[in-house]
């Protein structure tokens, strides 16, 4: 496992990471900028500078760490930091702790350690192009159903799908067609009344969430964004709008 860990880290630990791990003066100015620190009665273990000790240790041990160790890393990088980057704003050297936490999350993911929900979402992205495993047929059917329902209230309302040359490509959170179609209906009403020139796309690219980013799975992350860009280019829209 140690070899795999080093193979993963080597190309990814760049000049900045090396410099930061070396020059952090352990001054503690980041401590009270962290909401995990203040919300836990100033628990010293929550000091951002302390949380990245794992990266330093793993590199020093040349990846020779066991599963229990990685589990401890998991507890810290997922449940004691949400990569908000506030500590960086107060660090005299502007050390980007969140970037290092993100790398640790990516390392854990490469070793098969990640929150279950995220892993499931990533499988869905890869298979269906959205996090909720909505098929293309179900997606289009949901839009059509929304249109029918809403048109009863606002006569003449249309929800455009794959309209070429529209001004906006509107994207949603995949939870909306799955659990909250009423959100899509409300938006349809607003767009209709405002006379906005918009469209949905029928093929993958309509889900604007990017959960794979949270475990550092940049490959899937990239695929998700590329899908949206592909659709935007195909439909020749001017802008992409994302749901609230």
């Amino acid at each position, binding site marked *: 496992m140690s070899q795999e860990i080093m193979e993963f880290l080597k190309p990814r630990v760049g000049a900045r990471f090396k410099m930061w791990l070396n020059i952090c003066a*352990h001054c503690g100015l980041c*401590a009270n900028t962290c909401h995990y620190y203040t919300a836990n009665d100033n628990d010293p273990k929550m000091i951002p500078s302390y949380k990245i000790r794992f990266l330093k240790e793993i590199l020093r041990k040349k990846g020779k760490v066991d599963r229990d160790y990685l589990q401890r890393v998991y507890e810290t990088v997922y449940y004691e930091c949400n990569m908000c980057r506030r500590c960086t704003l107060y660090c005299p050297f502007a050390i*980007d702790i969140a970037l290092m936490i993100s790398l640790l999350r990516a390392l854990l993911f490469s070793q098969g350690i990640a929150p279950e929900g995220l892993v499931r979402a990533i499988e869905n992205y890869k298979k269906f192009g959205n996090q909720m495993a909505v098929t293309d047929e179900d997606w289009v059917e949901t839009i059509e159903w929304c249109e029918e329902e809403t048109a009863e209230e606002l006569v003449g309302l249309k929800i455009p799908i794959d309209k070429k040359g529209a001004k906006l490509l509107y994207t949603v959170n995949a939870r909306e067609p799955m659990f909250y179609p009423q959100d899509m209906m409300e938006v349809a009403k607003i767009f209709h009344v405002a006379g906005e020139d918009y469209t949905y796309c029928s093929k993958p690219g309509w889900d604007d969430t990017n959960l794979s980013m949270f475990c550092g799975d940049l490959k899937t992350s990239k695929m998700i964004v590329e899908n949206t860009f592909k659709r935007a280019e195909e439909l020749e829209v001017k802008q992409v709008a994302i749901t609230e």
Partner: protein
Amino acid sequence: MDFFSFVEGPLLWIAFLIFIIGSLIRVATFVSLSTKKDKIIYQHFSWKYVFATLVRWILPLNKDLVKNPVFSILGYIFHICLIVVPIWYAGHITLWEESRFEWSWSSIPDGLADWMTLIFLAIAIFFLLRRIFSPGIRLISAFSDYLLLIVTALPFLTGYFLTHGTLDGIGFWGDNMQLFHMLSAELMLILIPFTKLSHYILFFFSRGASGVEFGRRGYSI
């Protein structure tokens, strides 16, 4: 050549060369590695954000001053004394004038240098106590953090003893204060490139890199 002449001559050369060449290597390593592995810095490079962030943190115009006023102000004074006293102390300048370089520049009054030394030492002691007694800071402190603080303070302590003859005639330590002063300063110079003290130069690159990273998202840090 006796030990004193060695410390006064060759070792001083060695210390300065390690300090200068070592620092240059640290910078060169960062630049060459970052062009390969941190391309994002160069793809989005903007002097505007780099300059803004450096000015904010070199001058006390930053968020820390509001968030942690005591530590920030002490930190600024600490660094000002650390830079000003060794370079502009009249006794040091005399040595430069007598050296083969014959360099000379104006000095600060000795009284001011004295006060700055004492203030520096007081802050250093405060930092040390903070490291020992503040639970958070103690947790994140490594052995090197204590060591380097002492290494940084020693030249000032010995310098003060030397100029005031505080310990003169008191045994081995008192009689060799000039030796200890030079040795402690040389130790610090030698350690700079290999430790976190290299932040004296890498500060600019670290802040610059993050300045670009935040700047490309339209936020000037």
